């Protein structure tokens, strides 16, 4: 017996998702979107940080109100297991044997203490595919560093690279290593699944989330490693574009500020922009960069009298890259995101309705639809224990009495 199968290219693929917060769960979410049966295991005692971080339904904090938790766990089945309890460890082993893929993001070494790490699980299931995802990797002098992606942003250099040269780093928004890392993990897991299906061989993936993020800094890293300068934060300056920056606009009713991003990538584009701001359209990139401050002031004087949407439309019509800095309200009303049906409303037992983002890819033949909202705490405990592991009511009662589930 098993849980009802999903539909899509991964229908029938079974995933045991022991990861938490964002970097790991995002991977399971993508697999659930495309039909995999994903059981998300949560600790009943140590709350998943994603549940206590907003945005919250109705702006009210609460472990069942988090839009973040909802966004990265939609379509999964929920099971609570306290892995410090031996009975829970046994349940986990049985689920690992059921699964094709196990994802986890404990500090390196924790699962080994419970004999639930790759080596022990592989002895039970030789063709297991397992992802262990941590900030800095399974080995090395700093493998025990605790942290969320915000710490990862510090260790991956991104924190230092966002901001102004005359100020302390502003940093990116939130736990940045949680954003690139799932892309690398998902791609590798799907390759591993393909490989296993052809060869019967199991695969272990040791992910350092920081190392995934460093791929997005590769040009700067290669530069410094080979005798070049070390990149430092430089505001919105770009060595190959001018003007290039964020300019103030006339705020719409009810907003304190409004901004537009403008990136002029060629002399041709500059020739088209210059007349609007009464500047010299013949200036070269070097000349524009030499007179950057003056040009920025002229451009800001022009944008600040206009609505950001107007600036965006006027410049895009001229073939110049521009876009208002979207608020989340703007995103909700963005005709392009609506065209892609990017925001999905799902019926929700507690909230009536919830909203999640759609899959980040549109596949023409096998489009994804999140089957259900993220599970509430332990929502599917009984169903999973009965349908997947064929436990009887008495066995479930005994399990509950051992403290394994709560």
């Amino acid at each position, binding site marked *: 017996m098993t849980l009802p199968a999903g539909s899509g290219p991964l229908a029938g693929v079974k995933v045991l998702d022991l990861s938490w917060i964002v970097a790991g769960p995002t991977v399971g979410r993508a697999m659930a979107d495309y039909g995999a049966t994903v059981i998300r295991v949560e600790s009943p005692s140590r709350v998943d940080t994603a549940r206590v971080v907003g945005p919250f339904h109705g702006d009210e904090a609460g472990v069942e109100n988090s839009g973040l938790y909802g966004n990265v766990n939609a379509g999964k089945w929920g099971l609570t297991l306290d892995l410090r309890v031996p009975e829970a460890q046994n349940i986990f082993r049985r689920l690992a044997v059921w699964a094709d893929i196990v994802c986890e993001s404990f500090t390196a070494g924790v699962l080994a203490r419970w004999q639930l790490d790759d080596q022990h699980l592989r002895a039970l299931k030789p063709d297991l595919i397992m992802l262990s995802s941590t900030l800095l990797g399974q080995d090395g002098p700093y493998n025990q560093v605790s942290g969320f992606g915000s710490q990862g942003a510090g260790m991956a250099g991104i924190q230092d690279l966002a901001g102004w040269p005359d100020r302390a780093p502003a940093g990116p928004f939130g736990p940045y290593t949680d954003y690139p890392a799932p892309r690398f993990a998902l791609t590798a897991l799907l390759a591993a699944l393909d490989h296993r299906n052809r060869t019967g061989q199991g695969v272990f993936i040791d992910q350092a989330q920081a*190392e995934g993020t460093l791929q997005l800094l590769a040009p700067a890293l290669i530069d410094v490693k080979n005798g070049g300068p070390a990149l430092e934060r430089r505001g919105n300056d770009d060595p190959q574009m001018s003007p290039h920056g964020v300019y103030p606009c006339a705020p719409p009713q009810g907003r304190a500020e409004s*901004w537009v991003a403008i990136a002029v990538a060629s002399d041709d584009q500059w020739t088209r922009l210059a007349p609007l701001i009464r500047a010299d359209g013949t200036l070269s990139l070097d000349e524009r960069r030499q007179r950057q401050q003056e040009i920025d002031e002229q451009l800001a004087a022009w944008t600040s009298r206009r609505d950001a949407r107007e600036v965006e439309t006027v410049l895009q019509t001229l*073939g110049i890259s521009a876009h208002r800095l979207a608020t989340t309200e703007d995103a909700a009303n963005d005709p392009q995101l609506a065209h*892609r049906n990017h925001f999905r409303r799902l019926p929700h037992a507690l909230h009536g309705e919830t909203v999640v983002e759609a899959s980040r890819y549109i*596949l023409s033949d096998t489009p994804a639809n999140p089957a259900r909202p993220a599970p509430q705490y332990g929502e599917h405990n009984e169903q999973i224990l009965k349908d997947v592991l064929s436990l009887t009511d008495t066995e479930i009662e005994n399990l509950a009495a051992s403290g394994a589930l709560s």
Partner: protein
Amino acid sequence: MLSPYRVIDLTDERGVLAGQMLADLGADVIQVEPPGGSSGRAVAPFFADCPDDSIYWAAYTRGKRGVTCNLEDQRGRDLFLRLLESADFLFESADIGRMAEFGLGYEALHERFPYLIYTSISAFGQTGPKAHYVGSDLAIWAAGTPLLMTGDDDRPPVRVSQPQSWGHAAGDAAGGAMLALHARHESGRGQHVDISAQVSAAQATLAQVLAHQLGAVEPERYGGGIKIRGQAIRGTADVADGYIVLLMGPGPAVGHFANHAVKWLVDIGAAEPELLDENFVTYADRVATGQADPALFPRIQEIMREAVAARTKQEMLEISIEYDLLLVPVLTVADIADSPQLEHRGFWQEIEHEDGRRVVYPGPPLNIMVDGDPLGISRRPPPELGQHNAEIYSELGMSAAEIEELRSEGVI
């Protein structure tokens, strides 16, 4: 793992990482450029000792083979179709409509190569009211919403100084293409994977992109921290030689780290031992019911800031590991180049370029064991322009004379 598969990679600087992600997993990836070279070869930075050589392009074509092919020419298009005969994946990032103008749009190629997985990377997606918008790193970051959330609150919002948008989109392109591969195993058919960099950028908001629709407040930017309903919380602190990420708070998610920090402060004599009796996991609840002093936690934060200010990033990292604190250095690019952790993990790899230069690269993003053995790592250098023309076009069954003719006529 992906050695049975071939990728034809027609991307320029927009999305060139996607093919490399599959190359790092073992796929045979062929980067296709116009005879004059990809626009990606003009993207900064450039090698200090070789100022015409783009580090950006090298970074994301490492591990691939390279050919040239002039799609403006009918013979080039015919040649490109021959390349696709043996391909499982195509990645492209051309301006919207350009591939169709060449007769190489999805519909035409799907009819001809029903097996082919055709992945398109663009700023806003292949169709829709903004599909023809001109994309850029900054505009994409603005449209996806992370840009407005980032920066000092008294200055304009600010991006990451190494552009990020296309990297996120490329990561989604690789994942989407692999999902389509699994679909092909079921259906026997390839399909079109449509990547929007705007949607990819929305990932970098911690789901705050949903805030308005959930009835939550709009996030506000605050340098080195966050601001909630106008209240700023700094997430970094000054140390003797730079900055650290320091997240200290009470509550069920992070309160135990605050307890550990108090232990350290007591050990160094900066805080009184009585504080060890306080439990910051439950502190906030007790403040709410009047059982704990609301001034206590801010005082400890102040003590903590003073204690770290006198120490270096490296000292604080070691203390963080010893006491299990939620604290790490804000590493600079220069620091990362010297990281003992990356050194230990064998992250850096030296690759010999075709011209003999030895260049140090970041390694693949994952350490992978297949059936107990490490997955082989390719040390193939980035291809010079058209480097594998003879090799690959002869694999297609062309004679040396035919290849030379195409070369002399500017097709390759």
